[in-house]
């Protein structure tokens, strides 16, 4: 399975035409303690760069954007009871939603793991 990354600090794990989406370890560290995640409803159609979810820390709310066009097929209900999963396991158990992609060519705009690592290092300089 291929893993892709966006400049908005999301990761996508691609399985056929479905992408599992979450926020990266770098993103959760920058946000701090997550206290609430608002997830999109199953069946909702999203356009790339549109609002997909909201993640709230003690201090502030941050938007999570859809990295690709598609339809939500599953949301991680575990995050309702335990939003801290995003801090503890951002790139595994702390996933946000699964989206059925309508235009797989949009994946070409995203970075691979090495590309994302270099992107983050560039931000920290």
């Amino acid at each position, binding site marked *: 399975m291929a893993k892709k990354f966006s400049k908005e600090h999301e990761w996508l794990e691609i399985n056929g035409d479905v992408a599992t989406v979450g926020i990266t370890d770098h993103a959760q560290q920058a946000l701090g303690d997550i206290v*609430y995640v608002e997830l999109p409803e199953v069946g909702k159609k999203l356009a790339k760069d549109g609002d997909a979810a909201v993640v709230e820390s003690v201090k502030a709310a941050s938007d999570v954007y859809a990295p690709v066009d598609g339809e939500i097929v599953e949301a991680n209900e575990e995050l309702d009871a335990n939003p801290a999963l995003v801090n503890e396991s951002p790139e595994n158990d702390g996933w946000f939603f699964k989206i059925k992609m309508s235009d797989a060519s949009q994946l070409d705009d995203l970075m691979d793991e090495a590309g994302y690592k270099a992107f983050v290092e560039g931000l920290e300089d």
Partner: protein
Amino acid sequence: MADPQAENLYKTALYDLHVELGAKLVPFAGYAMPVQYPLGVKGEHLHTRAKAGLFDVSHMGQVRLVGENRVAELEKLVPGDIAVLKPGRTRYSAFTNDDGTILDDLMITNAGDSLFLVINAGCKDDDIVHMRANLDNGVELQELSDRALMALQGPEAANVLARFAPDVASLKFMSFVEIDIAGIPCFVTRSGYTGEDGFEISVPDTEAEKLARLLLAEDEVEAIGLGARDSLRLEAGLCLYGNDIDTTTTPVEGDLNWIINKRRREEGGFLGADIILDQLANGADRKRVGIKPEGKAPAREHTMVLNKDGYDIGEITSGGFGPTVDAPIAMGYVAIEFAEPGTKVDLMVRGKARPAEIVALPFAPHRYFRG
């Protein structure tokens, strides 16, 4: 991320220590201030409630008023009874204006030969102009701009500070003493902005880092940033100037009637007294209240408050998540007929009306030391 060093920000005497401790520094009221340390906002908040936290609040203004008419002159600008304040006692008050609204909130201490004032960072320049323009009859304002201010807050704060200055143990809430801490001359008030027992310590800039390091070396003490300072004060139901009170709110609307005692209500004689005394007698149209969202979604400042019929009845002025109550919490203004605790309301968050309830403040009980 913005580099605070690049923006011509003021630095407090503890700036280098913040950097060394790994703080995330942000611009705040013109200063590069630590919003959090590696422990994180939630951890810092919970640590302060469990043990003791050290806060750098040197961005706040410290001034002294001298001159024999200082009390009467200051009473022209604040609705509090300063004449009754004995030496060594501290009082919370507010500068009002001709509209009866609030220019700033502040702490006033009778330091014996002077009044010692602590004012908000974002207001201090305007406050000083306002005081210099209005304090007559030989009253002189001295800016104590070479002093740092730190707060040591939490249930272990008194135990920790007494190791360096045993006499602070018996100091009561809202009292003041000039005392040496580990040989450093300090002004200490038993007060704070967390709802916990604790102290605010004014110290010469040149000695600030030494004192901070001494306190941080104690097992119970962690450095705490502005993020946790905000969540702690919100749980304690304390106003943040600029959010919860400002030049659009009167002390009566802000539920601060308690800062105006019987004598000042009878005599008036402060800016905006006609408006404020009228509201005290006849009520205001709206009031600051605690608001508890029913679900888990925090409602932030500027969130609209609706009654159960869907009408706009007010606005949240501070809102977030309270780590100690482990739930979202908020305060804001609602029309007076909806201000009673227990009233059900809705909060408009991201286009959805979400249920909430008006509640009494504070969310976390105050634990002040009253002797």
